[in-house]
């Protein structure tokens, strides 16, 4: 019964979405303001129907008795293939509706086309949901044992990570839609950027949070001591983030200076295409991955959609290429603009590196013997690019707009350069010999120094500082985000370059020392819990006890799961995995000591705080500034 309700609602949403798309495009073409409103309302209605379908799905899940904790059942909504698509289109519909509400001020045509593009994207997803992958088909069949959510996935991180990542993907369709609409309407000015800035920031923040949450989950649950494996699923979430990062910076140049139009259109389109491409790769099974999603028939649909989007975008860009120039004299090479161009190029370079590594199995498989790249490929190819990006983060903010850097810039650079030199000497003295470490860490220190010099420029007296920070919060929030990134990169560098690992088998009472931390094996213990047995091997570390365990789920075919025990301090994580206990009571462990891991999570949090703090309120003033410069904005 619920199945029919849900499927019917989705079908209605599809009809409404298709209607909205067709009508909005026609109304934009004929500049019929009344029909534009009808088209928008159709979009809102389609969104409402999608939300209803989502509620039906959630209700159906919650009212089945699965003998699995409620939170996990609720998470089943986006956990399955079909449900995750429904979740995606729901986020897209809701955010899209919000973005359309105030869009009339952009001009009839631009607003109409934006609604049309968004409705078209929503309709595509609904076509797939209705025809190929309906979440409501699943429910008409009651599984015998309930849907045994795999224990490896029964974890807090796995509850939050997917919806955040998916929302990050979905929300990027909004800047894309407005960009496409701007190109369609021949309005290459910054109006679309100002209008969608919030959504772009939200998308970027969600993607950042999604990536960090994924790393955190992998680290805590998977038990291999690491947090990133360059697996296709990870890469596919990373590439849009890179393009979005470039777009966020580059679009500021257009907002402030009216330049980089071609770049911004290109980057927004690239980010969106990468999202669709990534979805195709991950759900079609064409590339070998550790993460198997249920390989389904939706792959070819996404491939077709990707192709359509590529063709559509290319035609648009080509048709409007004349109006993409800002008409002004190009800026000097070594200027703030130059730094942003280099940033765009480098970030796209990293996308190219990651993309190649991800599709190599597919391409090589088609041409001959299938090959895959290892982790060292990514490190060797992308590493230098990341280092250059760090350099840009340190030097870029100190360069002048438009003119070439002169003596004033060189003077401004002495602080970051000096700090970098001090860190370099300290590392060398401490015996560090790894070239990447000797380059990366001083550069990170330079980035921090630059951020602080920017904060210092505010201070003409400490009492004025808070006021200034609030008034110029967009700028200072951004530097806080840069500081957060510096902290995160430091955490990654330290845990990457200086992780130590040891495999050991201990009898009760025996000790082992790794990187200066001494652990004593206290003995093992078997505990019976509700649906699983736990074999615990207790280790004493100083005054605390770590309890790494192996959990066995008899009801699921004897599957076992590692519970990692981690002792975290600001300086390092001691990470212990129990690999087994033999008949004599000796336990085998794999122990990692990873420096500064908590800096990674803390850095991620600081980034988000910086973005949020920097962008609370202030919308009216920004839009006013853009309106003054863009005469075409209707009022």
């Amino acid at each position: 019964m619920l199945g029919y309700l849900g499927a019917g609602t989705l079908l209605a949403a599809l009809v409404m979405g298709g209607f909205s798309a067709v009508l909005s495009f026609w109304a934009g073409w004929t500049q019929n303001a009344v029909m534009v409103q009808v088209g928008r309302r159709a979009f809102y209605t389609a969104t409402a129907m999608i939300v209803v379908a989502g509620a039906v799905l959630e209700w159906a899940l919650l009212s089945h008795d699965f003998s699995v904790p409620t939170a996990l059942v609720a998470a089943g909504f986006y956990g399955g293939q079909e449900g995750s698509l429904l979740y995606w289109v729901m986020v897209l519909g809701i955010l899209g509706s919000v973005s359309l509400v105030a869009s009339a001020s952009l001009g009839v045509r631009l607003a109409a086309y934006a609604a049309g593009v968004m409705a078209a994207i929503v309709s595509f997803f609904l076509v797939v949901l209705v025809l190929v992958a309906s979440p409501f088909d699943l429910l008409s069949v009651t599984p015998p044992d309930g849907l045994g959510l795999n224990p490896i996935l029964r974890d807090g991180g796995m509850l939050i990570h997917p919806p955040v990542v998916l929302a990050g993907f979905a929300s990027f369709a909004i800047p894309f839609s407005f960009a496409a609409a701007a190109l369609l309407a021949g309005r290459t000015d910054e109006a679309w950027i100002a209008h969608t800035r919030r959504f772009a920031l939200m998308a970027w923040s969600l993607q950042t949070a999604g990536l960090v949450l994924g790393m955190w989950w992998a680290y805590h649950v998977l038990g291999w001591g690491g947090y990133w494996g360059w697996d296709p699923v990870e890469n596919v979430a990373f590439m849009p983030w890179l393009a979005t990062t470039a777009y966020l910076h580059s679009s500021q140049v257009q907002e402030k200076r009216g330049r980089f139009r071609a770049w911004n259109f290109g980057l927004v389109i690239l980010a969106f295409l990468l999202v669709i491409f990534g979805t195709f790769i991950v759900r079609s099974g064409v590339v070998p991955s550790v993460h198997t999603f249920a390989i389904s028939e939706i792959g070819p649909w996404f491939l077709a959609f990707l192709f359509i989007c590529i063709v559509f975008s290319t035609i648009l860009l080509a048709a409007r290429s004349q109006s993409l120039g800002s008409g002004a004299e190009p800026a000097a090479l070594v200027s703030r603009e130059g730094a942003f161009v280099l940033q765009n190029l480098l970030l796209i370079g990293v996308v190219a590196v990651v993309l190649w590594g991800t599709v190599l199995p597919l391409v090589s498989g088609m041409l001959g013997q299938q090959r895959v790249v290892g982790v060292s490929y990514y490190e060797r190819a992308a590493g230098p690019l990341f280092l250059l990006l760090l350099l840009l983060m340190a030097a870029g903010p100190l360069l002048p707009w438009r003119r070439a850097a002169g003596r004033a810039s060189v003077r401004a650079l002495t602080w970051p350069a000096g700090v970098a030199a001090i860190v370099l000497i300290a590392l060398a003295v401490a015996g560090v010999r790894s070239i990447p470490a000797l380059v990366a860490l001083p550069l990170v220190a330079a980035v921090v120094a630059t951020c602080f010099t920017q904060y210092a420029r505010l201070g003409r007296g400490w009492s004025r500082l808070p006021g200034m920070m609030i008034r110029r919060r967009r700028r200072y929030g951004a530097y806080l985000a840069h500081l957060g990134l510096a902290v995160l990169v430091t955490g990654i560098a330290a845990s990457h370059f200086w992780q130590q690992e040891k495999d050991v088998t201990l009898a009760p009472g025996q000790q082992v020392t790794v990187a200066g931390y001494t652990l004593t094996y206290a003995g093992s213990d078997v505990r019976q819990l509700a649906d699983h047995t736990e074999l615990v091997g207790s280790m004493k570390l100083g005054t605390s006890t770590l309890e790494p365990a192996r959990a066995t789920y008899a009801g699921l075919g004897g599957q076992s799961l590692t519970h990692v025990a981690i002792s975290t301090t600001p300086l390092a994580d001691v990470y212990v995995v129990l690999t087994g206990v033999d008949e004599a009571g000796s336990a085998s462990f794999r122990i990692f000591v990873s420096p500064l891991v908590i800096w990674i999570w803390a850095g991620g949090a600081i980034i988000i705080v910086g973005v949020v703090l920097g962008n609370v309120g202030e919308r009216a003033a920004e839009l006013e500034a853009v309106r003054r410069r863009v005469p075409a904005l209707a009022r």
Partner: protein
Amino acid sequence: MIPGLRWALPALVVAACVGYLIYSASGGSAEYYLTVGELRSHASGGDVRVAGVVQDDVLKSAGGLRVTFTEKDATASVPVDYSGPLPDIFKPGITVVAEGRLGKDGVFHARTLLAKCPSRFSTTAYTQ
């Protein structure tokens, strides 16, 4: 004048650098990804990856840190020898990807072992 022509040269330089980085990095570390059946006929000397299904003959020793099992795909099987932590879902019937080398003794010596991560919300009931 095309706007931004000034940037064409730096862009080309960056593109060339990126191309060089990709080329040199993949030369060293790309591995062949084979099925069990292709393993014996594969000639090259480097590490390879093999995907297959774990059979029933899993032998663990030294407290779980070393395991021997046979990996089989549709056409052939190969014994695998591996030292290190096992993926959590490791048991007969699952698909694994082993990375390493086929030794002269006909045994595949695996350096790393990855299991395919289960689908998030599986509708297939687990069987014994």
